């Protein structure tokens, strides 16, 4: 997993719960990386799972809720890091539609070894989009948060519902409807 996810995650924890909690969840986990992450590096996915479950235990918030919140945080961070990407879109639906064909192409340019989820668009109108998220990581809640924030970023109010097509969350159908 890319280092930027770890650094941004710890950034969110620090902003939200304070440095002490960051320190605790790292110290309590027996991590190979010892909690030392740089955005340009690549680390084990299991470390992210350990960190987030430690945080969940600590702050008594479900993992999925944490992931959802992290998704929203991550969108903003990524947006700050790569503003040109977001600027090339005028509305969130087009942006989500272009994840596969545009955004992920750019990601692969910078990080050829990145393991990315797929977003297959099933249906799209001017105000709604149905897409199927597929990833062995099963981080659909993170994807949910990212999408939610994408709409907010463009100043759109949205209702996103999702259906688990696989119980482990490795295949999920998202339906996003813009509220007019």
């Amino acid at each position, binding site marked *: 997993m890319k280092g930027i996810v770890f650094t941004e995650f710890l950034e969110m924890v620090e902003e939200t719960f304070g*440095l002490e909690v960051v320190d605790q969840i790292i110290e309590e986990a027996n991590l190979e990386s*010892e909690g030392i992450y740089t955005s340009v590096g690549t680390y084990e996915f299991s470390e992210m799972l350990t960190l987030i479950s430690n945080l969940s235990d600590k702050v008594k918030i479900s993992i999925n809720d944490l992931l959802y919140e992290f998704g929203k945080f991550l969108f903003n961070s990524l947006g700050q890091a790569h503003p040109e990407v977001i600027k090339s879109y005028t509305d969130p639906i087009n942006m989500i539609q272009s994840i596969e064909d545009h955004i992920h192409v750019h990601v692969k340019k910078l990080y050829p070894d990145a393991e990315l989820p797929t977003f297959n668009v099933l249906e799209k109108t001017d105000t709604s989009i149905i897409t199927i998220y597929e990833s062995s990581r099963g981080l659909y809640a993170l994807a949910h948060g990212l999408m939610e924030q994408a709409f907010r970023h463009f100043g759109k109010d949205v209702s996103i519902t999702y259906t688990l097509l696989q119980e482990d969350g490795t295949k999920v159908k998202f339906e996003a409807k813009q509220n007019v």
Partner: protein
Amino acid sequence: MSNNEIDILKRSIERQKKARKQAERILEEKSKDLYDLTLQLRETNERLENLLSEKTSELEGVFINIIDPYIVMDPGGKVIKMNQAAISLLGYNFKDEDFNLKSIIHPDYLEQSKKSFEQLYEVGTIKNFKTKIIANDKSEILVQLNASVIYDKHKKAIAAQGILRDITREEEVKQLLAVQKRQLDIIVENSPLGIVLTDKGEIIKSNQAFQNYLGYSKSEIEGMIVKEISSPEDIDESLRLMEKMEEGDIDKFTLIKRYTKKDGSQFLARTSVSAVRDSIGIMEYQVAIVEDITKEREAADLLKESESRLSSLISNLHLGVLLEDKKQNIVLSNQMFCKLFSIGKSPDELLGKHVSSVSDLVDSWIVDLPSFKKLTQTLLKEKKTVLGKIIELHGGQIIEIDYIPIYSNGLYTGHLWIFNDVTVRNNYRRNLEIQKEKYSSIIANMNLGLIEVNNDDIILLANQSFCQMSGYSEAELLGEKGADILSVKNKELLLSKSKERLKHHSDSYEVQVKNKDGEWRYWLISGAPRYDETGKVVGTIGIHLDVTEQKQLELQKEQLLNQLESSNVALKEYAHIVSHDLKSPLRSLNALLTWMKEDYGDVLDDAGIQNLNLMEDKLEAMDNLINGILQYSSIQDDVSKNTSVDVNEVVKEIEEIIYIPPHVKINIVNTLPTIIADKTKIHQLLQNILTNAVAHIECEEGLVEIGSRDSGDCWTFRIKDNGTGIPPEYHEKIFDIFQTIGNKEGSTGIGLSIVKKIIEIYNGEICLDSAKGKGTEFYFTLAKNK
């Protein structure tokens, strides 16, 4: 700042330092990689440059010949190269005039295009960029552009090359598709049929109808496995078909299966599954259309049941039925039709055949074939309902034919023939007429007067005899009120009888009626209520017999009987008086004779004594005679004295009373019956016969036999002796009073007349079989029910 906080910060800084070092290391590695790569690239570049200069001239021709429109433009957008396809698409030629790609972009797309161009030079490529341009002929063309930047040796962008694709049509099609998809969505969502999209057995999308069928909400049902909502018994078949579809053997299948609802109940549905395949035939999704056929199935079952009821009704109908369609093919016939015309085939075999296959057979039965042919031709031509046409068959049957054309929505679709065998009905009607005639002639000719009146006593009918009896003609009687025209002596009786009639009572009674001549006549009337077909009393039928003559005879007879009775009584009294008065001088004579024998026995000679003895005998006979007369006259029919009498007992008693000479024996042949009678009379009857029998036996061994047998209504008795016998000339006389044969002592000539009188009381008869010297056999009968 607490120690703890310092520790945390220390650790954090430590991590940051290490992270920085890690990042620096990674970057150093990357720098080295890049340096190596640059060296490699430089070498490759030099090789390529040589190669390029070789290939450029070749490529130039190739680019020009690319089928898709191809352009090369400088960073400002000015077109510096384009192929023939691009020229014909845009209508501009860079050779003829300078033109800038940016200048022909449609104003609506300007801003977006500007960004895309920036992106192109920034990233180096642009893919599937859509924009609208205005061609030289002012037509608007929607194009898709795939472009890449051309760099010079110094990595400076000098131009961009791109392939344009006219997607105007494609986009129109896309929009059309989107519209159609929206329409389809509306149809799917509002379809009364359940529609569901599945992927490998998992429900991805479903419409409202399907959710309603199963009772799950949209969010509940999506993600469910089809197996979960299928009835277990149908799963194997579904899987088998699904496998075939997966293998590409079939593209769709339909099956009828049961679904389990959320509430656990089931419903039967026709399910049509179609495969949605990608361009190379791999199945991506399955679309299933689900139709609840529970009600349909129930209705079909009901229909089937009613059809079978109807067809069994028709096949067992007592009417011959033949239904033809408009081409005169047989649609339906029944057993009775085949039987009537001896078709020799079952109704099922006739099905679908043209009517000509049976018409010859039918025709062969018709007596008047020409008329029948004419009739059927007219019927088929006019196509109007005709009922009750009568035809006669060679077998003697009378058939009533109905022709009924059948119209559906005003269109003639065929016709129905109905054949009704009315032979029996016709014969019945004829018989009824014959019967009516018969009775009418009986009524007209009978000797009894018949009259029919309604409830108001108005005469509706009177026959010949009644007219004769009453003296009025039929014309005088009809329409008149019975009581007005015929005066009756006892009107109250008549009125009460009329009331009885209304209570459905019928009886007979006698009235006195004055006829037209003013004569009073006795009529015996039998009256009975007359009913209409609903069983209501509408009047009276009276049968009259003039009994005036009989009545007069009866009155005479009654008078005679009264006279007879009083003279009988007088006679009886007379007999008593006479016998009593006669007996008293007899007793005096007897006393005088006894005294004379006692006082003068010594002085009288033998002859004198003998004469006295003779006188004594005559006196005794005289006494017996008088007793006999008394008995005879006192025998009377008196039922009240009847009891159960054992005749065997009676015979025994008689044997003890009467004198039986020693050489005579009385023998009872069979056990005699016990009869209902006056015991005294039976005793007297048998005693009189037996006394006679035993007294007249002269042979050495006398035998009297008594026997009896059951003769149905009566008992027959037989008393046989072997005595002197009775000559045939006396056989009648002996039963008359005072008749004896010879001068046997003690014979009064009354005994057998008493016997006859008793037998007559019991409705019996007596006769005898005898000849002189051959013994006598008496037969007599006694009725059982007296």
